[in-house]
């Protein structure tokens, strides 16, 4: 098994560490590889789109020729998780801000996103979030976080905060507005790995 983490920009090392901790805890073995260029995504069994700046990530995914490879991976039904900027990139549709910057989205998940739904950095927050697959709340870190405004029938809503959708899945795809990679609690990464093993 090989899990790829898109490493163009953002908190890549944190996802790599979180995946390794999660794998250790469940006693399973997989390679965790970072991906900056084309030719590697197709060799992975699962993929993570990290947090970062979605405008930068979107532009460079295209310039590097990785975007099409991620489309193919999704068509093959392999698990893909996007956190924060990764959630934005997974979406089919953005908001005015996304349109304004001609931002490229991968368009894999049938949902519309609001890029900075919770405001600027001074509004960023941590809170205890209820997730349907966990028995106790999860300390979720939201940083200039997006939210899901609208979604199609194939999308399952997993969590809301302040009436906004902050976690959802669509088959092999898992989209989170917060950053599970910034805390030591691996339960969200475990949930993602359950899609692989």
């Amino acid at each position, binding site marked *: 098994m090989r899990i790829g983490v898109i*490493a*163009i*920009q*953002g*908190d*890549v*090392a*944190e996802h790599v560490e979180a995946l390794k901790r999660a794998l250790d805890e469940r006693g399973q073995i997989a390679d965790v590889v970072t991906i*900056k260029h084309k030719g590697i995504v197709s060799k992975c069994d699962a993929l993570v789109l990290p*947090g*970062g*700046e979605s*405008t*930068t990530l979107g*532009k*460079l995914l295209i*310039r*590097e020729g990785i975007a099409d490879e991620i489309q193919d991976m999704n068509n093959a039904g392999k698990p893909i998780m996007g956190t*924060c*900027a990764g959630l934005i990139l997974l979406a089919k549709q953005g908001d005015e*801000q*996304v349109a*304004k*910057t001609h931002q490229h989205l991968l368009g894999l998940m049938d949902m519309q996103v609001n*890029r*900075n739904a919770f405001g*600027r*950095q*001074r*509004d*960023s*927050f*941590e*809170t*205890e979030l209820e997730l349907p697959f966990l028995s106790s709340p999860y300390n979720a*870190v939201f*940083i*200039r976080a997006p939210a899901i405004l609208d979604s199609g029938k194939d999308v399952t809503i997993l969590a809301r*905060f*302040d009436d906004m959708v902050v976690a959802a899945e669509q088959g092999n795809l898992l989209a989170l507005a917060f*950053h599970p990679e*910034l*805390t030591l609690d691996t339960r969200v990464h475990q949930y993602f790995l359950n899609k692989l093993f």
Partner: protein
Amino acid sequence: MELEKLRHGTELIKRGFAKMQKGGVIMDVTTPEQAKIAEEAGAVAVMALQAVPADIRKEGGVARMADPQMVAEIINTVTIPVMAKARIGHFVEAEILQALGADMVDESEVLTPADNKYHIDKTQFTVPFVCGARNLGEALRRVNEGAAMIRTKGEAGTGDVSEAVKHMKQIMGEIRALNGMTKEEMIAVARDIEAPIELVLETAQMQRLPVVNFAAGGVATPADAALMMRLGADGVFVGSGIFKAENPEKMAKAIVEAVNNYDNPEILAQISKGIGSGMKGISVDTIPQEQALQTRGW
């Protein structure tokens, strides 16, 4: 929403914001038009200031935070984070920038210091701070004051990368030297470099600074940016290097691509072609000691 369950401005959130910038390029801008060019090129954030360091150097006088009207306009123009510089020790400028909605404050030696003894107590703010450093002691003192991100000071506004190289190698070398030391040896190091022992121990254990560490101060070309990444920087600030270049759009885009391809000389060669000349610059050796910006702050 239960407000008491919401926590703002925690260390996790502040340092987390800086982590989202990793592998990116942050560009100095003085107008909304420049901010737009930076965003279009793929910058992860822009730094709003009154004049780029090269002009501050040339014009002299007292350099203060940017006009709040201009900062607000830049914030309204781009979707990427907007940072802004405050004078060392000027906590009111920092409060004003926070109130305007700036996403990070740079307590910067590029501006004229407002306090020659104390830096801002950055733990009192909701927004995160970035601060300059020349060595491990200076970096950890800033972290102890609440900085969520460190950048090398280099020598801003020169287009001469040599001081940024010196500061990055200094910090990385000091971290490597902690490897294998006993606790009592590290206590002695902490005393020598005037840094808290807890942060020295944490740095030794992580074998890196406890916060994100960018390069800054003299980066002027894609090759300079790639060099700083090779030396271990988490990302790069480019000040005068973009808008003092012959073709800012091409230079901005090329530096973004160079940071993503810093370890591939073939791609760097392609990126570096046909982008026009970099800023003219000024060799650090020719700058009188009293005009050096890096000696501001301690």
